[in-house]
């Protein structure tokens, strides 16, 4: 039976609809009057970190090669007759797909024929077609993609940092895998992963923009194939709280040195994860606040520039706070960060600064709702993180200075700090 709920946010003045569809799929729809476009995202909670799993009836866990979730995304983007691009080209829609650490998403944006496009999306994702020939053909293109991402210094600096942080957790592995690991991928393995993770009970559909909920549901009712929940179990190797090593440097042809300075924190799940993420975001924003003394000193000395920023990076079994940017002297940033956290731990945060940063964060969340694409992704991401679409705004309004101080004290520890630097290398003209 299909169940429908309206989710509202009084803070943002917004609402959306959540449907638990009889097929097993969770569906979120946000009707956005005045907008012309429609964004639809069909996602599964399956990413590069999910390499060990089993479902009901499996006697043991299956371990698959690194990069297989991403490979599967490439292959699912075409059916027996043609690719998704060709199908969407006939309607004028723009289709795409992507894989992250913990999710794989297929999407389209369009301004008309959204029901037809939704049909294409649902059929595409529910009808895998893998043969030895088409799997082998994709290896060259993915190999090129791996090479291209390895040439991106911001990608290298990030993964180098993750490798220094995590002993065993697969978050340290490149999303696309390696040329060696993808060589082991077969049609049989792809079907095994598909059958396990592309179960509608493990998936979510999010549609926002110029749509009517009933018309979206009409298509869903017609094209979703009911799934029995196969009780998917995902496991991760045990991960120590300690980091692997505190520093890594690599030389690459870059014009300005870049760095990632990351604190390995203890992972969290469910509602604890939301609270922790919001406190971590507040802590990170306060530590990169351009009005702070630390920022002013580093900027004045030419150690940082306006690229200095922060992010909270978390998922199943991993959680970190990362500071990044361009700097010729990343060591000095590490020293300053350690000293500033020590100062906050003894003196506490300034309440006025805390409220100012909170207002700023609130403004950013409101702005996101200005946008069809962002709205669709907010609904999808919230579901995959086990929260409701406007829970983050609510949690932000509730977070306190004390909670943020606690997070800084307990999680931003100098012995859990990793510095990754990509240093410039002369270019031969």
């Amino acid at each position: 039976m299909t169940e429908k709920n309206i989710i509202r946010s009084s803070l943002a003045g917004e609402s959306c609809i959540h449907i638990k569809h009889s097929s097993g799929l969770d569906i979120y729809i946000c009707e956005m009057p005045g907008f012309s476009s429609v964004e639809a995202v069909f996602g599964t909670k399956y990413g590069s970190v999910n390499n060990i799993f089993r479902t009901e009836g499996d006697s043991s866990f299956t371990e698959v090669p690194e990069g297989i979730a991403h490979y599967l995304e490439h292959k699912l983007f075409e059916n027996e007759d043609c690719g998704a691009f060709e199908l969407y080209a006939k309607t004028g829609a723009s289709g795409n797909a992507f894989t992250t650490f913990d999710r794989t998403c297929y999407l389209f944006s369009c301004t008309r024929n959204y029901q037809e496009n939704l049909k294409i999306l649902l059929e595409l994702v529910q009808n895998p077609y893998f043969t030895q020939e088409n799997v082998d053909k994709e290896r060259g293109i993915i190999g090129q993609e791996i090479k291209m991402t390895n040439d991106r210094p911001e990608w290298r600096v990030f993964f180098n940092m993750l490798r220094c942080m995590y002993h065993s957790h697969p978050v340290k592995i490149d999303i696309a895998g390696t040329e060696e690991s993808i060589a082991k991928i077969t049609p049989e393995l792809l079907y095994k992963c598909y059958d396990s993770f592309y179960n509608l009970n493990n998936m979510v559909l999010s549609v926002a923009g110029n749509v009517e909920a009933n018309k979206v549901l009409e298509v869903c009712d017609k094209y979703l194939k009911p799934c029995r929940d196969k009780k998917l179990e995902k496991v991760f190797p045990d991960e120590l709280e300690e980091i692997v090593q505190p520093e890594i440097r690599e030389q690459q042809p870059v014009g300005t040195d870049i760095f990632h300075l990351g604190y390995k924190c203890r992972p969290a799940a469910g509602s604890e994860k939301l609270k922790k993420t919001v406190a971590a975001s507040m802590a990170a924003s306060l530590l990169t606040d351009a009005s702070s003394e630390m920022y002013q000193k580093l900027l004045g000395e030419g150690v940082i520039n306006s690229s200095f920023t922060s992010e909270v990076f978390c998922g199943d079994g991993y959680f970190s706070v990362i500071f990044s940017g361009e700097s010729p002297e990343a060591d000095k940033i590490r020293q300053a960060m350690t000293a500033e956290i020590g100062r906050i731990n003894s003196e506490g945060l300034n309440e006025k600064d805390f409220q100012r940063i909170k207002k700023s964060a609130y403004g950013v969340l409101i702005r996101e709702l200005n946008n069809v694409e962002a709205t669709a992704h907010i609904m999808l991401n919230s579901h995959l993180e086990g929260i409701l679409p406007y829970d983050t705004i609510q949690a932000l309004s509730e977070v306190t200075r004390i909670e943020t101080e606690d997070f800084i004290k307990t999680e931003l520890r100098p012995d859990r700090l990793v510095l990754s630097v990509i240093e410039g290398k002369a270019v031969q003209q």
Partner: protein
Amino acid sequence: MIYSRKELTEGTGFSCSADSKFKTVSVIVRFIVPLSADAAANALAMTMLGTVSSRFPTVAKMNEELSSLYGMSLGTFIRKRGDVQILGLSASCICSRFTIDGEDTEGSMAELLRDCLFSPSAENGEFESTVFEICRREILDRIDSELNDKRSYAAARLSETAFCGEPSASSSCGTREQAESVTPKAAYEAYRKLLETAPVEIYVCAPEGDPGFEKMFRESFSALDRSCTAPVFRSKSPLKPETKEVSEEMDVRQCRMFMCFKSDSDDIFALKMLSHILGGTPVSKLFVNVRERLSLCYYCSSGFEPSKNTLVIDSGVDRDKLEKAREEIMNQISAVINGDITDEEVENVFLMLENRFATVGDTPSSVGSWYFERFCEGSSSSPEEQLMDYRKVTKARIVNAAQSLGLDCVYTMLSREADQ
């Protein structure tokens, strides 16, 4: 959405779009000047304006103001469009009705923009030196960091080669040497020159229409003695007698090949259609044949630049496939020259454009960008009107456009042999 444009004073255009679906107010001010040896001084002046003002003279104070106003954004952008430098100041805030304490965010943003543009942090005819040095480092880092993004770096090297001897060969912020030599006084003089002589285009997008920016800008610009020269947005670049080949080895795993074709045709819409059919969509000839059918590249796309009448095809390729990829790219161009264009290929482009144009009104900045682009092209066509212009393009015109192409130069970034 309601859109209108008017002239406030000589060379000062003011456009506004009102759309009740938005929760924010956005303003973009663009100064348009010829790309010249003053590029670095202009870039530094504009960066100063987007960093501090007389009322908020330090980065700390400005940031405090912005974050107090719910993370109001204030930024500078510096771009090159053919032989023209575009220097922009942009700001955006959430509407007052979404504030928790009822603050007047729109009014504060108007005051802040007036302050930044007309009352900068300067004394005795020069910018304040401490912040100026921070801005100089920003520009220098921006110039240096071009190498960090290999695709941008390769595009810049191609520009240098294709437009050698023309203003467009330079980068949007000038050279490192130029940026190093600009003094706070010279940058301030560049700022005054921008105010007094540069054509300006202002764009405001707000849910209920202009909340008072027109009045502020009219008063402020009227107080100046402005005398502007219309910018030259289109200047065709001559085709070299022989294709110039430039390559350099680098520690990269994937080679980048950029090919620049020049045309003497004035049929802009046919050239744009040609570019889309060749490599503008995931069902284009280059994507389907070079990437999908032959697996020669991870990407292979094309883009037409009307300001210089050039079509650039760029690709990411393995070193041992470079020759084959280039051959196949040329084969696809030959196919168009020989009239191998299907109705489906043409229709796919129309559908893609129709979809793209219909979304112009969906973000506050895209309406402004749309009409600014039209302003540069000397037109004021709406998305619907421009779609009609595309619809009029026949296959014969696309073939003619393809026939007008000449390969001017090729830049290749080579991965080291040892990596192969």
